């Protein structure tokens, strides 16, 4: 049973479009939600994160929208670029627990030029 679920295994958008990657979770105790970006041959790296007290977090072209009631969140990548092509992992942790990050299965994003 996956605690963090990413609905799409892959997503393809055109350059300049907004890519939307979705994520849902089951554990109400989760209160920290980072998104990690991974390029081929590399380890994942933190892209942007949100805490459950907020419903939106923006960093440049990247925005997280968070819905605590529905237990879901999404990563929006505005003005997508070919260099954004990577695998994106949604993750979650609970500050009240052992704080381990639980990862979703990832969404492979391809941005076509």
């Amino acid at each position, binding site marked *: 049973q996956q605690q963090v679920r*990413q609905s799409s*295994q892959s997503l393809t958008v055109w350059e300049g479009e907004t890519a939307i990657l979705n994520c849902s979770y089951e554990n109400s105790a989760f209160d*920290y939600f*980072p998104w990690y970006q991974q390029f081929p*041959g*590399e*380890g*994942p*790296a*933190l892209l942007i*994160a949100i*805490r459950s007290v907020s419903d939106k977090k923006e960093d440049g072209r990247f925005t997280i929208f968070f819905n605590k009631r529905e237990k879901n969140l999404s990563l929006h990548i505005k003005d997508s670029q070919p260099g954004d092509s990577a695998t994106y*992992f949604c993750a979650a*942790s609970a*500050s009240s627990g*052992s*704080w*381990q*990050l*639980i*990862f*979703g*299965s*990832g969404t492979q994003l391809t941005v076509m030029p």
Partner: protein
Amino acid sequence: EAAVTQSPRNKVAVTGGKVTLSCNQTNNHNNMYWYRQDTGHGLRLIHYSYGAGSTEKGDIPDGYKASRPSQENFSLILELATPSQTSVYFCASGDEGGENTEVFFGKGTRLTVV
């Protein structure tokens, strides 16, 4: 710059053999983690550690042992490797707390068990 270094980067092992994957971090983080990455499963936690001398079981510990002899080093040990353990393994380090709690990953070790 946070640094997590894994060795080897690639390894071919025989079924039944012993495999040791090594990880070194220069971040002075208390917490270290071993994950494996498989298509369709994302990153799954095998073992983790809160500091030198401690190891804890993650979500999929069966068939794996871990060792944390120092703050900097964390090893993953496969005593009797099996083909099902063919995967890419990532080591990571991090500390909880703060606005930007972050876990730093190494570049991974690709293990093939034949």
